[in-house]
């Protein structure tokens, strides 16, 4: 069966990219190659974790967002905010000021997604009781981790809690609420402010969901800049409150590390940062780690506070959010009632359908062919230098060998082999130069800067 490629929010801006290999070397799924002097992301292997964006020295990797004016094609414009947004601002900027600016931007409703965390917890507890044979349960919270499991740990897919993440529950809640107030489906626009690329990808091509619940995505740094600009320009006195007021401690801490793991019974572990997650999943897959009930796995260091679109230092953001969580502000009773009313509806619609394994690891769907390919790789590895220099445009010698066997690269891209072939007079120096130019582009061999 032909699998559709994932939607990816991470894009390489070609005229900015200098083809420097930083992104290629940090990619945890080896999804990047350099061709003609530009980074090239392989769609089936990328999990949208954003490591490449963090590593890029010239900001050539961006997170593609929707045109902001798209919100005005809806009568009811809902901003779904991630809780980490409030952690981005200095202490002297209040929640109310931030909400006021977001409303000024044109939103009719402002809602923090983690308001619906309670419903997620209840759903997950029920799920774990029902499917107790599927221990250890892996949270579906982080879309980069869900995709990572699909492509690199296909045998663990069934351990993922097949429930909608909280952002989808909130979106469903708000849409239903506005529909019940009399608005038509196409009058309601729900926009999620995202702290990372993976959430965008998950919104645009959701895994295990049949319909897209969110109409558009806005990058968190965009909102951050708007709010800062407005406040610096003197709109300090504006005040507005969110539709639901202050969040509970559980909600505020939900997207931080240990936010989920602290809520469930049994042995629950929280692991953040994608390499840590990979190392851990490797052990879970071997059943070296058993007797764990629940795993909270997040791709970013310090979870969402470390999202690629966060502007504030993640440690400071975590500190602020923890402070915010300690404040005890009584919720408006009517707000609480509203969510309670919709609770049964949301719990009824919380399930995800199948999450498909989509391994990127196998060399061929036919095992016999795969074996032949593996033998070829072993032969190629014997002549490659094994220093993983990246000068061929692939992150490791082994990756080049695989690319060669799959027909996606040529062995003579290896600069060591080029030297050998030139010495043996099997290729001319000009040919060797042309090969390197194909990998690195013409500009790489020109003198840089004026004079």
């Amino acid at each position, binding site marked *: 069966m032909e699998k559709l490629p994932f939607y990816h929010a991470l894009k390489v801006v070609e005229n900015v990219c200098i083809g420097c290999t930083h992104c290629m070397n940090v990619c945890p799924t080896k999804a990047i190659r350099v061709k003609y002097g530009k980074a090239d992301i392989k769609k089936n292997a990328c999990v949208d974790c954003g490591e490449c964006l963090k590593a890029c020295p010239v900001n050539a990797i961006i997170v593609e967002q929707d045109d902001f004016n798209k919100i005005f094609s809806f009568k009811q414009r809902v901003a779904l905010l991630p809780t980490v947004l409030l952690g981005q601002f200095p202490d002297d900027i209040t929640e109310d000021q931030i909400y006021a600016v977001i409303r000024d931007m044109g939103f009719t409703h402002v809602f923090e997604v983690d308001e619906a965390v309670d419903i997620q917890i209840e759903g997950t507890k029920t799920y774990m009781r029902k499917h107790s044979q599927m221990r250890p349960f892996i949270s579906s919270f982080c879309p980069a981790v869900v995709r990572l499991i699909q492509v690199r740990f296909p045998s663990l897919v069934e351990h993922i809690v097949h429930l909608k993440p909280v952002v989808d529950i909130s979106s469903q809640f708000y849409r239903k609420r506005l529909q019940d107030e009399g608005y038509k489906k196409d009058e309601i626009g729900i926009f999620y402010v995202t702290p990372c690329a993976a959430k965008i990808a998950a919104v645009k091509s959701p895994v295990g969901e049949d319909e897209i619940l969110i109409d558009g995505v806005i990058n968190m740094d965009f909102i951050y800049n708007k709010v800062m600009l407005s406040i610096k320009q003197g709109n300090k006195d504006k005040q507005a409150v969110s539709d639901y007021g202050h969040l509970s401690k559980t909600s505020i801490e939900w997207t931080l590390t240990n936010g989920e793991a602290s809520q469930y019974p049994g042995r629950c572990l929280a692991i953040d940062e994608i390499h840590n997650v990979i190392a851990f999943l490797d052990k879970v897959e071997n059943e*070296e780690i058993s007797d764990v009930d629940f795993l909270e796995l997040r791709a970013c260091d310090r979870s969402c506070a470390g999202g690629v679109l966060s502007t504030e230092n993640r440690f400071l953001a975590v500190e602020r959010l923890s402070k915010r969580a300690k404040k005890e502000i009584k919720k408006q009773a009517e707000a609480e009632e509203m969510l309670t009313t919709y609770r049964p509806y949301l719990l009824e619609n919380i399930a995800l359908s199948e999450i498909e394994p989509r391994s990127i690891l196998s060399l061929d769907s036919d095992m016999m062919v795969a074996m032949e390919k593996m033998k070829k790789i072993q032969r190629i590895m014997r002549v490659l230098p094994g220093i993983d220099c990246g000068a061929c445009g692939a992150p490791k010698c082994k990756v080049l060998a695989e690319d060669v066997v799959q027909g996606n690269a040529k062995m003579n891209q290896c600069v060591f082999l080029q030297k050998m072939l030139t010495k043996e007079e099997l290729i001319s120096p000009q040919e060797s130069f042309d090969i390197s130019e194909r990998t690195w582009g013409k500009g790489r061999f020109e003198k840089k800067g004026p004079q």
Partner: protein
Amino acid sequence: MDFKFDIEGGNFSKAGTASSDVKKVLKKLNVDPKLIKRIVVSIYEAEVNVVAHAYEGEMNVSIFPEKIVVRIVDKGPGIPDIDLAMQKGYSTASPAVREMGFGAGMGLPNIKKNTNELNIKSEVGVGTEVELINYLN
């Protein structure tokens, strides 16, 4: 197609690396994830047995169109009574090994559960050879 991985006796910090390497190979060969899991779980147990009891060993993997055969051969004390070793909960592991979370006496029974065919040959004072055969399809 054959692969060979070395196992170091007594080095618990490296216990599992051979199994992980085998897992990587099987993933590349597009073996069914469920079968990979069963194989890896059983060879991990066998690998830990070598680390815990033997001086050194190796894991030989042979992949055929219809089956995957893993032979784990060690130089070590051997097993005096294989039937007893196959019983759940029976263990000769030292208290030090148990403290590290190993040696619960589930090793061989677990391997048997996850393998189509299990053959054990052992000679006291010489070593043990464990053969696990799993059929594809």
